[in-house]
């Protein structure tokens, strides 16, 4: 298929960017979106132009590196996937595809489609861990019984790969789905409950400090999340913060 791409080009974090049109031809519908971007970049390199910078790593939907806002949606028009799992069969011959970086004040553009998502790392550092010493004195897993329901919910929350699609898709650039998932992942398990109050207070404080917006419960984050993280994690985080303050 032949496509027109409208891509955000920005030389560096200080330079003003703009949308630039490109044509790509003979794109197979079996290609992944990132492979299509590789074809474009090969074309650009061959013609002596600067290739489009974009984030990618594992290319199998695990690492959370690939971002991109494609045709007005984080990770494009498919559901439950990252951009590397988006396939060209989702588009038609002759389509114009708009490709932008994830937009949020807390996710500044570094170059082209690459954004700085270190804010998520700093939120994690503020409390997204447990301080139990697990080296050399590991307990038997069965010595702390955990209900199936709690284990399942904690595991679901832990599937968050921190890609930032929730922030990118939120009209308020809120990070509450990410923080809610990280808070829940520990709050649901006995090992995490020891530091639960400090954790939620510190992570929420860091989230606010990073300049993320406020959740208005539109639910867009849940729909666009490649791992299907539920809004219930935000409700749990709200409960945890209220509990920590009362």
């Amino acid at each position, binding site marked *: 298929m032949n496509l027109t791409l409208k891509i955000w080009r920005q030389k560096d974090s200080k330079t003003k960017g703009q949308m630039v049109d490109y044509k790509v031809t003979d794109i197979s519908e079996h290609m992944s979106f990132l492979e299509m971007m590789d074809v474009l970049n090969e074309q650009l390199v061959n013609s002596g132009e600067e290739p489009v910078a974009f984030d990618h790593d594992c290319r199998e939907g695990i690492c959370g590196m690939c971002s991109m806002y494609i045709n*007005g949606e984080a990770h494009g028009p498919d559901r439950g996937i990252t951009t590397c799992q988006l396939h060209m069969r989702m588009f038609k011959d002759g389509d114009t595809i708009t490709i932008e970086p994830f937009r949020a004040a807390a996710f500044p553009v570094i170059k082209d489609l690459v954004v700085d998502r270190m804010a998520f790392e700093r939120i994690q550092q503020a409390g997204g861990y447990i301080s139990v010493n697990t080296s050399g004195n590991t307990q038997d897993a069965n010595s702390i019984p955990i209900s199936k329901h709690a284990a399942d919910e904690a595991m679901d929350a832990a599937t968050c790969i921190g890609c930032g699609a929730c922030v990118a898709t939120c009209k308020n650039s809120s990070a509450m789905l990410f923080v809610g998932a990280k808070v829940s992942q520990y709050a649901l398990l006995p090992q995490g409950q020891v530091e639960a109050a400090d954790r939620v207070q510190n992570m*929420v404080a860091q989230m606010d400090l990073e300049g*993320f917006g*406020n959740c208005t419960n539109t639910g867009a984050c849940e729909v666009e999340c490649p791992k299907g993280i539920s809004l219930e994690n935000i409700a*749990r985080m709200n409960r945890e913060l209220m509990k920590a303050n*009362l």
Partner: protein
Amino acid sequence: MSGFFKSSIGRKVAMALSAFFLMFFLLQHFAINILSVFSADAFNEVSHFMGTNPLIQYALQPVLIFGVVFHFVMGFVLELKNKKAQGMSYAKNNGAANSSWMSRNMIWSGVAILAFIILHFIDFWFPEINTKFIQGDWSGTMEGVEGFRYHEELTHKFHSHIRTIAYVVAFIFLMLHLLHGFTSAFQSMGSTAGRKKTLQNIGKAYSIIIPLGFIFIALYHHLKYVLS
């Protein structure tokens, strides 16, 4: 605790608490107003009780005014903060793909409701405050009207085509605001009940029936005047 209400989540909780209070107020306001359709005397009696009861006038009324002002001010404060957090806008954004129009436009339905409340205050609340607190007339009567004045004042306002249309349009915006706000308030309070079918259905029923009821009251009095 003051630190909690300065946090983003604390502000959400404060918005939800004021929303619950306003939704309860709306329900009792509707319950009284619908009486005006069925019985002028009953409406007058209840209105006079509400308008002269010291507990309502001196305790609940200030709380209500605070709740209304707080909900609007905090709504605007959060909207501005969220706009700042958003940074640059997308060249192409398909919001309809993942969220409802109501949820994305709470600020605009809120602005429409604010405009209505200003009109509503000019129509009813300011004259009422003037009569009771400035002129000191707590009798609930007026010249040329037999018995209490409340039903006459209400029906008189709906003689105007423009005012009736303005009220109907405002109630449609109220419906849109409530269709997202009702369940959203539960989520903000940390309850997952808003995601359960039962509460979603109760929310839909409340959000549609109450504004439609107010529309019915406005149209009833208007048409009764026009057709008489």
